[in-house]
């Protein structure tokens, strides 16, 4: 029985995968490809934050900083030291992870609003540092001429190629996240999110779990930042401010807490929404603000989770019916 369900899931996943592979080919519009590339990068960010916010229940309004750390690591390594992009890609995630570890230890004992404020403060400090250390980061104007991502001589130099690169990375990270979530790490995170007291009395080191998940989600942001730098070929501070942090948190909320696919879908949705709003010029940001508020008022549990709960009831009902049949046998 379990095997059959697993096979069914596999079939469903294969359908999604097929759709992802074919989508840009069916619809060969470079603008769409560009959007999908951006959406993929945001999806990696949202996926990482989803582990921290959606599973471990901790607020971070500073994730744009880790994204920026990733982007600047790649930018500096590739333009100043001619490091291959593939190596810089891993170095970016490692740098983001190390910094997350260092600031996570003291910060993560905070909760709620105070954690939100502390992470937000970290993001602001990062921005000031980037703007002011001109010799390293190029200050306000940033760093230009970051090479395309390339692997073993193959350069990802069109949106289409980048699309496959980024969604490939996303897929890999999604698998990683899925494994984490179904393992002890995921269970401990959910436990910490609901009741730290109960978690600590069964022997979970609450601080360690929080820092661990924070580091993983920062590493995801680092990967995303590295890819972003390669795709945009520039890195400048205004891309990594509070508004991006807000956007990522919104992706997780809209996608639904405690859910990995939701934030990815939400990333696509919000990227598309921002692209449409871009057409309204100076009206775009006020409208964006209103849409954020409306989403929060009408879908505080996320669009994904509402559907998800309904699905879960369906499954658990079927599960119960099955169980009953087994008992009768």
């Amino acid at each position, binding site marked *: 029985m379990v095997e059959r369900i697993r096979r069914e899931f596999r079939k469903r996943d294969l359908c999604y995968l097929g759709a992802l592979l074919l989508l840009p080919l069916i619809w060969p519009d470079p603008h769409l490809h560009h959007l999908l590339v951006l959406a993929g990068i945001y999806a990696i960010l949202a996926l990482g934050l989803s582990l921290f916010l959606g599973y471990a229940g901790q607020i971070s309004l500073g994730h744009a900083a880790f994204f920026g750390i990733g982007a600047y690591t790649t930018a500096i390594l590739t333009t100043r030291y001619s490091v291959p992009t593939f190596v810089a890609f891993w170095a970016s995630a490692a740098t983001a992870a190390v910094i997350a570890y260092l600031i996570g230890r003291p910060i993560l004992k905070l909760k709620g609003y105070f954690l939100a404020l502390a992470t937000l403060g970290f993001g602001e400090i990062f921005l000031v540092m980037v703007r002011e250390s001109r010799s390293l980061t190029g200050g306000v104007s940033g760093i230009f001429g970051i090479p395309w991502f390339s692997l073993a001589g193959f350069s990802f130099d069109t949106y289409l190629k980048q699309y496959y690169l980024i969604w490939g990375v996303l897929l890999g990270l999604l698998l990683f996240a899925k494994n984490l979530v179904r393992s*002890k*790490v995921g*269970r401990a995170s959910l436990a910490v999110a609901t009741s730290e007291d*109960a978690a*600590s*009395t069964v*022997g979970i080191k609450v601080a360690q779990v929080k820092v661990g998940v924070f*580091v993983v989600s920062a590493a995801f942001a680092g990967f995303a930042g590295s890819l972003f730098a390669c795709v945009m070929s520039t890195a400048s501070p205004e891309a990594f401010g509070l508004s991006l942090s807000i956007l990522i948190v919104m992706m997780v909320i809209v996608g639904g807490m405690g859910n990995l696919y939701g934030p990815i879908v939400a990333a696509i949705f919000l990227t598309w929404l921002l692209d449409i709003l871009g057409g309204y010029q100076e009206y775009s940001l006020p409208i964006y603000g209103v849409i954020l508020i409306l989403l929060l008022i009408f879908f505080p549990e996320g669009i994904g989770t509402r559907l998800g709960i309904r699905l879960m009831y369906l499954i658990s009902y079927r599960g119960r019916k099955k169980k009953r049949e087994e*008992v009768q046998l």
Partner: protein
Amino acid sequence: MPLLAVKKVVKDYEGVRALNGVSLQVEKGVIKGLIGPNGAGKSTMFHLISGMEKPTSGNIAFRGVDIAGKEPHEISGLGMGRTFQTVQTWGNMTAVENVMVGMHRKLIGGILSCGLWLPWIKREEKEVLREAFGMLEFLGLSAKWKWPAFQLSYGEQKILEIGRALATGPELILLDEPAAGLTPQEVQALAEKIQQIRERGTTIFVVEHHMGMVMEIADEIAVLNHGELIAEGRPEAIRDDPRVIRAYLKGTVYA
């Protein structure tokens, strides 16, 4: 050497003395009850023993180790489990996952090995799943192993919480009012379950308002009143102790 020895413990909360020099011991292999009127300091005692709060003075030794001032997860690692007065199961996880969280320390995988789902992690997870399912069978919850915990009844959640504490493999388990809010039938089943847990080799220390149940299952009872220990001994002796009767009559009378 007793399994748990509390010596002259004092706990102050901003001017209010919740516990005033209480000493008591729990021997290995017994079921010990802790009773007393509301506000007597029973829950405070449990919070101190499980490390969720620090005593103002005095010391607490568990298996010969001083645990006053240790973190809850360290105390859990030494072999102590506990439940809470108001259930704290994790509603968004299934029943079996709730128990599996209790086995957290048995799993040695780290973040990378879990994320990569290495073969030995897979084996480890399977093993833990089987063990957790076994625990649910012992508690009589195995039919609902896949239910999210929030869909279980209150009584079932209380049992599940005990299962989660047992899953840590404790020497001593603290039960904070396990019978509160249960139906008479459930209380009866719970009493039997507690005795079975003792037979499996776990020592039990239980705070309870349900006198009938405490008198039935406990080998020894300690009575707290206004933060002081007023009596300790066998259930029959406690029942007839004039100080205990007075303490209860002055406060609310419990069934």
